[in-house]
């Protein structure tokens, strides 16, 4: 290309942003929802009591977990107890896995130690996991594909920075109602305001996948059959597991171990108790501190012999500077450590990233509409395709997620495969929205989907009130901010979509006739 550096970078920015833009939008929407995954979990399982994490009797909680595990899975190979800690770990959880691959888990009531029953749902955790696992696709594909998509994001950000003429000026530029220029200003504003976050979130996303997608350089230094295993044993020494002895031996009492943990870390610092090979001579008990104490995504660990109770090893949260660097990257990406104020910033940044992508996708169509003419039929088809994908994704995907929540309230509680069907509903609705966008005239497509989105979110608290008793009339007086916050957020979303629909409808300069040729819009 006989172009300047800037021109080629502008070309690269446009195409790296456009080609996978709708998938990047999906990742940003599910990723942003993921910052509230445990709150969404709780809204989607209204049978669970309000979480109590401030006054936890560690020893009693562990004993409850232990007796449950003994009852349910005495022959399991691994037991895991998660104590109620904070918004990320609101309940007492038990998990077990057997050598045969069977697993099971329970949420336990703190007071009685009895399992709590809820409707079958994958909750907010599923939305969050779709962020990197997508859905319906094998992991071996999605691991590579998601990293590929993230590289497109990385290139889009870098080239966006390179082609920028005046980053500082863009903080203060927004020219509304000027059509294409306004969309450019909005795109720049969203991107520039949240740029440090977008760089961090994209690069840390790549680092999450680094062991998987750079196997050549690993194999170069750790080759052979077990080379990779040896590499991981070397850099993650605390993950090395001891083999089962196949000799029965009773598990040591856990309370003294908890006391030891308290003497190391202070009161109420225990987050998790993991028991490998319970009932075996080679049993090991690992007590971990609470997660999310800081950006380092690691907690300190104490490893005990599971039969004698002797303290074998202590592993601090921060080991080498290298590992800590990676842990900080991952910790910043997940933002689990964030208190309420910082979490609002995370959410706003995630939203700005989502809008950055949406405005970019819309800008692409707006710039090309005035250039449409009969000599370039390919361009007209391209702009049409992009515009319809825009409608069906930018508005259609939020509608689909709203439908996920509607399904959670409306699907019969005793239905088999209920949790999977909540997700099926989401994707079926998304497909319907894409089909609607393919068939309707463009302007009506936007207006109709905006109206549907508005209705889906405004009515959700009503659906909640009709199907459970944890509606705003109950949650607001009770100060239950998980439920009240969710319902109120749905109302806000509904009003936002309504406002956009009204604005579009009232814009007299854009009519159905000239929508596809509108020069200014």
């Amino acid at each position: 290309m006989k172009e300047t550096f800037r021109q080629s970078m502008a070309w690269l920015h446009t195409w790296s942003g456009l080609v996978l833009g709708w998938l990047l939008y999906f990742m940003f929407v599910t990723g942003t929802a993921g910052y509230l995954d445990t709150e969404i979990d709780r809204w989607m399982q209204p049978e669970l009591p309000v979480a109590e994490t401030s006054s936890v009797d560690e020893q009693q909680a562990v004993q409850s977990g232990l007796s449950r595990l003994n009852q349910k899975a005495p022959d399991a190979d691994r037991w895991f107890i998660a104590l109620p800690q904070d918004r990320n770990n609101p309940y007492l959880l038990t998990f077990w896995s057997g050598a045969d691959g069977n697993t099971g888990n329970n949420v336990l009531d703190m007071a009685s130690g009895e399992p709590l029953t809820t409707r079958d749902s994958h909750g907010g955790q599923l939305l969050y996991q779709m962020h990197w696992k997508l859905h319906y696709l094998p992991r071996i594909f999605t691991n590579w594909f998601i990293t590929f998509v993230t590289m497109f994001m990385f290139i889009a950000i870098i080239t966006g920075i390179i082609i920028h003429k005046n980053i500082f000026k863009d903080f203060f530029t927004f020219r509304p109602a000027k059509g294409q220029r306004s969309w450019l200003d909005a795109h720049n504003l969203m991107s520039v305001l949240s740029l440090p976050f977008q760089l961090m979130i994209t690069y840390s996303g790549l680092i999450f996948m680094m062991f998987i997608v750079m196997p050549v350089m690993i194999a170069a230094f750790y080759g052979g059959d077990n080379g990779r295993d040896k590499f991981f044993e070397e850099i993650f020494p605390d993950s090395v597991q001891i083999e089962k002895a196949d000799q029965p031996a009773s598990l040591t009492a856990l309370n003294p171990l908890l006391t030891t943990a308290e003497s190391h870390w202070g009161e109420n610092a225990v987050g998790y108790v993991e028991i490998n090979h319970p009932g075996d001579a080679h049993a090991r008990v690992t007590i971990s501190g609470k997660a999310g104490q800081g950006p380092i995504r690691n907690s300190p660990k104490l490893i005990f012999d599971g039969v004698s109770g002797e303290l074998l090893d202590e592993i601090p949260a921060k080991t080498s500077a290298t590992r800590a660097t990676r842990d900080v990257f991952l910790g910043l990406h997940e933002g689990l450590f964030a208190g309420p104020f910082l979490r609002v910033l995370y959410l706003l940044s995630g939203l700005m990233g989502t809008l950055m992508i949406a405005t970019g996708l819309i800008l692409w169509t707006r710039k090309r509409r005035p250039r449409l003419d009969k000599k370039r039929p390919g361009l007209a088809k391209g702009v049409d395709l992009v515009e319809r994908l825009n409608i069906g994704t930018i508005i259609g995907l939020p509608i689909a997620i709203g439908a996920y929540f509607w399904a959670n309230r409306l699907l019969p509680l005793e239905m088999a495969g209920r949790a999977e069907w909540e997700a099926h509903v989401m994707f079926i609705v998304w497909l319907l929205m894409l089909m609607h966008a393919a068939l309707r005239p463009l302007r009506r497509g936007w207006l109709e989907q905006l109206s549907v989105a508005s209705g889906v979110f405004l009515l959700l608290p009503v659906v909640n009130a009709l199907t459970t008793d944890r509606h705003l009339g109950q949650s607001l007086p009770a100060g239950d901010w998980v439920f009240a916050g969710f319902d109120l957020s749905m109302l806000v979303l509904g009003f936002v979509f309504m406002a956009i629909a009204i604005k579009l409808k009232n814009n007299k300069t854009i009519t159905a006739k000239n929508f596809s040729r509108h020069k200014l819009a």
Partner: protein
Amino acid sequence: MVIKGSLPILSRIIAAIFGGYLLTQLISIVIVAALPASRGESLFITLMLSFTVYALTILWAFAARSVLWCWLGLLIPAIVLALPVWLIIQTGGI
């Protein structure tokens, strides 16, 4: 018409995605060997850096003033690094 016009672009895309990836591995292996830390630590650090290296090779592929330069700019460093990388792998690391 469309095919003819897009061959140079397709060429650069292939160069960027696959050529860039391979060159990134070669550059990374040399960096790992050059770092003073232990084998495992150096590899760990370079894994984190590798995405920046990859991004730079991709930018080169599209910024190069011709398709020929695009490929030469990836192939020449790859050839230059081939021997050192082979030696590094043979001697098992640092």
